[in-house]
Structure formats: structure tokens, C-alpha cells
């Protein structure tokens, strides 16, 4: 072993304290001026990251969201921030041999998750109609299909939503850490930290992220009052949103809304770490694939063929 110097020491002496204080005041003044012109409160702007909230701060923030909901919709809401359970990793299965393309899931999701209804219309699930002749091929996919009855002859249907990747390109793309992957696998967004740059949208290979180009249009009577801070709480203009596996339901043990509404039972959901769960049974006995496997996003959303 050659001779080694002592361990590195942190930086030099701090800058002149009075200069530093001046800079701080000046910066704060400029920020207040800028913020007051765009309707953002100072407190919200200076708030820490969700992951660093103390229990007190979290309570305060949740109460504030509820208060704002009441102001905006005139309706009482409950906003939770239930965390991931230990020993749970969510997995989602979608049976392509069953799906008939009826779009019931799309509208159950809309009713549950409080997205904007019209201009912009935001739907987290997109059902693609594809030709049986071509198989899973985006060049022959159409999600604007209209029909009197489904499934149409010669077609099959592939609903696409957030794949909750284990290696999420959107999270890597976000410059403000406004989106991250939780322990149970759900990729979440803090709408208060999203700056609306839409880098995540261009990074996502599944088109699963949607942008509020204008103030969301959500009638008060359609507001789902059961909300999660990282999920279906009403969004402001200029932020990105996406499927969260119905975090407000699944963190409480319930199935996502799309699973419960599916009339053909094509949607399966459960804990990948529980060997007796439905999703594990699917993984072990069916032909399973992930969408765009070649991109190494490692989704927690699996497509399968039960027959």
C-alpha cells in the first residue's frame, strides 16, 4: 500500500455571512415578486419534497389540499397519503385473449381518478384495436375505433396505460424529482413539484403520461371525494398525470377501478410477492409478455393469453 493522504475535508470557509444573508433576502424578494404574479403561494413554493415531509408537515399539506378542494368544488373531500405496505409489490395482468375492447375500463378510470373531462380530455387508459393478422403491432393500431358491437371480426384489443416500469424512463427524465417510484412499484407524481416541462412524456415509450394543457374541466358532481395526495386529487393546469394503479384504492387493499368494472374479467391485479395471488398464478401458468420488452423498462404490467 502506498502512502495515503488524510480523508478529504469539506470545502473552504463559508462566504462572508453578511453577503450571504443579503443574497438570501434578495432572492426571496425576487421570488415573491415572481410568484405573486402567477398565483402560487410562497409557502407552496418553498415546501420541501414529499419524501422529506415530517408527519406534521404532511398533515398540514393534506389539510390544505382538502381546503383547496372545498374552495374549488364546494365539496368535502378526504385526501390521504397512505404509504406502501411492506412486502407488497403490485403486479397487473391483462388477458389479451379476453379483452373485447368495450372501453368500460376507460370510463371507470375517469370516474375514479378525477381527470379533466373535455378540452383537454384526459384518459389514462387507451384501448388499441389491432388486426389479428398482424398481431401486436403499433403500425396497425387504432384507438379511435367506433363500432356497434365489439369485438369486431378480425380484430383484437390491447388496452395500454402506465406500465409502472421497474426502470422508469420518465423518472430519469424528470428534472425536479416530481415523479418517482414507490416501494410497492407505483410510479407517482407530486403535482405540486411538477413544473410541466413534459420531459417525462417524451421519455415514456407507452404514451401513458398526459398533460393538462388548460385548467382541467371537472364538474363538482363528478368529483371523486376519496383521494390520495399522489394519485387522484384534482390537478392544476400545467402538470402531468398518469395511471397510479388507483393508489387511493389499492393501498387500502381494494382492486383498481378498471379491474372491478371489466365485464370479461380480463384484468388481474395483486401482490407479486404473494405466491397465492391471482397475478402470480397468471405469471406461473400463462403465456406472459411485457409491452416493448426491448426497451428494458421492465414493466410491472403484464399482458397474457389465458387460452
Amino acid at each position: 500500500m502506498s502512502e495515503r493522504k488524510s480523508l478529504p475535508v469539506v470545502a473552504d470557509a463559508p462566504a462572508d455571512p453578511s453577503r450571504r444573508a443579503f443574497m438570501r433576502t434578495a432572492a426571496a424578494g425576487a421570488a415573491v415578486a415572481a410568484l405573486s404574479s402567477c398565483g402560487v403561494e410562497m409557502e407552496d413554493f418553498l415546501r420541501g419534497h414529499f419524501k422529506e415531509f415530517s408527519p406534521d408537515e404532511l398533515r398540514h399539506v393534506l389539510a390544505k389540499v382538502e381546503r383547496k378542494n372545498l374552495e374549488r368544488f364546494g365539496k368535502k373531500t378526504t385526501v390521504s397519503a397512505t404509504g406502501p405496505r411492506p412486502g407488497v409489490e403490485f403486479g397487473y395482468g391483462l388477458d389479451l385473449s379476453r379483452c373485447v375492447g368495450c372501453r368500460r375500463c376507460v370510463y371507470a378510470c375517469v370516474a375514479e381518478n378525477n381527470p379533466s373531462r373535455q378540452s383537454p380530455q384526459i384518459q389514462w387508459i387507451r384501448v388499441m384495436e389491432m388486426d389479428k393478422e398482424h398481431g401486436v403491432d403499433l403500425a396497425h393500431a387504432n384507438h379511435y375505433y367506433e363500432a356497434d358491437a365489439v369485438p369486431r371480426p378480425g380484430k383484437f384489443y390491447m388496452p395500454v396505460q402506465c406500465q409502472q416500469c421497474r426502470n422508469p424512463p420518465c423518472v430519469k427524465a424528470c428534472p425536479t424529482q416530481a415523479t418517482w417510484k414507490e416501494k410497492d412499484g407505483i410510479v407517482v407524481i407530486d403535482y405540486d413539484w411538477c413544473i410541466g416541462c413534459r420531459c417525462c412524456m417524451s421519455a415514456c415509450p407507452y404514451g401513458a403520461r398526459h398533460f393538462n394543457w388548460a385548467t382541467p374541466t371537472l364538474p363538482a358532481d363528478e368529483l371523486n371525494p376519496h383521494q390520495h395526495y399522489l394519485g387522484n386529487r384534482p390537478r392544476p393546469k400545467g402538470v402531468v398525470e398518469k395511471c397510479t394503479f388507483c393508489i387511493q384504492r389499492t393501498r387500502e387493499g381494494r382492486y383498481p377501478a378498471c379491474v372491478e368494472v371489466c365485464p370479461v374479467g380480463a384484468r388481474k391485479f395483486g401482490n407479486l410477492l404473494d405466491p397465492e395471488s391471482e397475478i402470480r398464478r397468471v405469471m406461473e401458468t400463462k403465456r406472459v409478455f411485457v409491452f416493448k420488452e426491448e426497451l428494458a423498462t421492465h414493466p410491472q404490467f403484464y399482458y397474457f393469453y389465458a387460452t
Partner: protein
Amino acid sequence: MRLDTHALTILAIVAAALASPPPAHAAGGNPAASPAGPTKSTKSEPSPEPANGAKARETAEGPRTPPLIQAEPPPFSEGIFPCSGCHVDPGDRTRRELTFHEDIQKVFDHDSNARWCLDCHDAQNRDVLKLASGETVPFTESYRLCGQCHGDKYRDWRAGVHGKRVGQWDGQKTYFLCVNCHNPHTPGFKGVKEIEVDGKKTTAPTLEMLRPEPRPLRPEEMRRPVAPKASTTAAGGR
């Protein structure tokens, strides 16, 4: 010697780092996780258990509340049940065209070349179904009858892979019967509708296929009218 001092310094630093309070990153993440605790004890039952299966399970793991609830079966056609209202005695057991039950005969498409009514319906007691073994089962357990031929579907259904379940992914869930989605007389899946039986929501098969919900709007259909934009700029806008 020098090496040892270095090792000691590093050790001391590591120890200090471990002793210092951990960052509060978990605080916001799961405030409700600790009181709720792991709910592993109520893990999901793998399958709807016919009576015998349930017993086997109880002896293995001790009794517990069954987390699976059976959905209400779809109702019979009006005024048709109990069948014994008309069928008082076994009657003619030869395969033939019936002069009654036209609504069923009209749609009957369930291996219709080889099978007829009394292959599933019990001739002695018309209010129950009959397995190939001769054992009878009530209409509410018709899945046992279906499972005789459709073993692969039956096994998948018991595991929750075929068909739908609603409720808790980690606990109590409601499962649907074969006949909630498949008309036993013409079982190829066409569509289902939501119905209410005894105030409980359930489903019933239909003879029509499902109509899809409206397609999403195309981007060009979502544009807001241009006129208001001009007025906002006139008013100073932001």
C-alpha cells in the same frame, strides 16, 4: 501500522454515520403503514372452495373466515322456477324436440348435436342439476357441473384467473359464477349486463354483444374556441 490507523478512522466515520439520525424520507411516504401493519395474515384464498376443499384447508391451517363470497346467480326466467311446479314425475327421458321451453330450444348451442336437457338437468328432481356421476348439485353450485368438461377453465376460475373478482386484492372478494357471464344453454360469451338481485349487484349474460363506450377525442377536437383567446389578450391576460 499506518494501515491500521486508517482502518480505525474509517470505522469511526462509518459508526458516526450510522449513529446519526436517519433522514426523514420515510416519514411522508407511509404515515399509515405502521398502524395498519402488515396484513399478511389475511392473505387471499386461492380459489372458491367447494365444500370438500374448504374442509381440507381448515385442517391444514386452522379455521378462518372464508374471504370469498359468491355473487348472486342471475335470476331464472320469470315463473320458471321451481321446475317441480310442472315436472312432478320423471316423464319421458328420450331425447326429442320439446313442445315447451322454445326460448331455450331456439338458442340452444352447447354441443347440441350430442346433448340435450337431461344431460345436465336431473330427471328425478328437476330443481337440481346432475353430474355425470349421478350426484346432484343445486343450481347455485352449477360450476361443478360445468367443470366436468371444462376442467382447464374450472381450475383457472378457482384460482381467480378466469372470470372476475371484485373486492379486496388482499382479502375478502366476491367471485362470480359461470352463469353470471355465460348462458348455460348458449355458453359462448357474447355480453353481460349489470343487474340487481335482492338488492345486491351482480351480472347476467346477454345474447347481444357489448357496445363500446365513446371513442376518445382527437387532439383537433379538443381545441378550445379561438374567440375567447382574443378577449383575454385584450383584457391584459397573463
